[in-house]
């Protein structure tokens, strides 16, 4: 039996963000969970299915999260623990991590805490490490596989040039890579049942201050020629005209 916590971040659907006057337009962009967070959830659900236990989603964000979290409950989570506050729409990693750690401290007998390698929007890979630091738990990020034996887990951490096989004792914090699995697509009846699963909205005060201030956030200007060519041959001609070597 395992008690597994999965931290998931609500983000705007990145494919639907448009740029207006160099600024990203986020209004009316549907919210979802980050892709890699869905891998983290799938990893948790697979462990639960193999060993028994419970998967709890922990998320902190704006009020819309109450709706978004249904996605996770449909995809196999059993319960959700949320902190909702408009301020959290643009939180920094430190504050999110603090709130997540406080939620987790309130849950009993947690064995495994799973994160995505990076959130879909900020992709800074900080929150999981911060939570591990706050809870003083061992950690590994960039995890490609997890195997649990009793109170030990064998995980493979994938770095740029090598893979490390680690044996670690639970409780434990892991951040997973997208390669770890293929998240399931919930069925209609799972989606309908998700609406009835327990969702606890915690009354934790959200601190005002953030440690990171964003001075500007602009889409890079790209000036491209945007010329159509009709054939491979014409392409080679234009590249040759630009003087690329090897192109005759």
């Amino acid at each position: 039996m395992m008690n597994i916590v999965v931290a998931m971040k609500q983000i705007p659907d990145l494919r639907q963000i448009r740029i207006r006057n160099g600024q990203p337009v986020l209004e009316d962009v549907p919210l979802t969970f980050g892709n890699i967070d869905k891998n983290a959830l799938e990893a948790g659900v697979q462990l639960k299915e193999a060993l028994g236990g419970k998967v709890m989603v922990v998320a902190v964000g704006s009020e819309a999260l109450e709706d978004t979290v249904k996605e996770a409950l449909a995809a196999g989570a059993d319960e959700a623990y949320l902190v909702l506050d408009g301020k959290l729409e643009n939180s920094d990693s430190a504050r999110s991590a603090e709130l997540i750690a406080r939620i987790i401290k309130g849950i009993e007998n947690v064995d495994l805490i799973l994160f995505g390698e990076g959130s879909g929007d900020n992709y800074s890979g900080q929150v999981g490490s911060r939570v591990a630091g706050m809870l003083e738990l061992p950690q590994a990020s960039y995890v490609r596989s997890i195997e649990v034996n009793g109170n030990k887990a064998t995980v493979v951490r994938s770095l740029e040039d090598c893979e490390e096989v680690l044996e670690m004792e639970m409780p434990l914090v892991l951040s997973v890579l997208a390669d770890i699995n293929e998240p399931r697509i919930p069925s209609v009846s799972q989606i309908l049942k998700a609406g009835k699963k327990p969702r606890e909205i915690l009354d934790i005060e959200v601190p005002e201050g953030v440690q990171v201030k964003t001075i500007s956030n602009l889409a890079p200007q790209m000036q491209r020629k945007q010329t159509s060519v009709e054939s491979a041959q014409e392409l080679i001609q234009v590249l040759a005209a630009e003087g690329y070597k090897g192109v005759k």
Partner: protein
Amino acid sequence: MAGILVYSNKGTLALELLNAAAALARVNSQGIKAVSINNSGMAADLAARGAEVYALDNEALLPADTAAIAESLRQLAEQLDVSIVLLSSDRRGKELAGRLAQIWRAGCLTDVKGLQSENGALLCIRNVLGGATVATQQIVNDRQVIALSPGAFAPAGELDGGIINPAVVEIKPSALKLLEVREKAGDSVDIEAADILVVVGQGVENQQDLSLIQQIAKALGAEVACSKPVASDKKWLGEERIVGLSGKICKPQLALILGVSGQVQFTVGIREAGTIVSINSDEKAFMNSMADYVLVADLKDVIPELAKQLA
């Protein structure tokens, strides 16, 4: 500005950090504090660049044990009274950054690709929204942990005045056992260094076409790179060839992009290329809208044609 401490477990990255620190302190590397862990070669190297090196030699300290390395750096940061710790934003460095920031009570940013100093404030430049935008951000804490993208800064050059001091920290025995380290198969290609890249996306439907693509690359004097799914899901090419947010940020003179849809996490890795060519059967593919030359065509026909024409 109180002191700056730099650490990476990779030699080349540590030298880049040293250079970035020097620019920040508006001095040369002299006086900048650098940590080496169980690596006397790196300690010597850093000292040869003028750094004040603190060499931690403690066999109990495993690089794989993020908790222990973070705790060691926290103790050193306090002992040496620095206010900024620079780390490398490779996977190891990113994992470390959050933990160190938490236990040292610092603000933190990772994947920082540029630094600017403005009216005494240190501004960090990094991609956000999956790469759709570039943000300028400031850590408002006194203590800052900043992880710099590999390659964003040149390595520091040689300089006199370096020194190596022994360092001591107290750590608990490791809770983690390193069972095995497997070298990753794959050639050591450096797509970031290539002048020309031929980028394979999922629009390349037949694995057999890879050999033709290699011919095309050879004719152009190019390296072959790819989008993430081509390496991670299909495993046609090694992960070191991935262009994008979780791969490499490349700035070749020419990028020939074959069948890539152009989602931001990809384009962030190629948008600074000199000339971009996109070949895609979908006229409306986003990649086309950021290309200099667009060929709307089926790659099944174009790849053999290009190979033939360039042969």
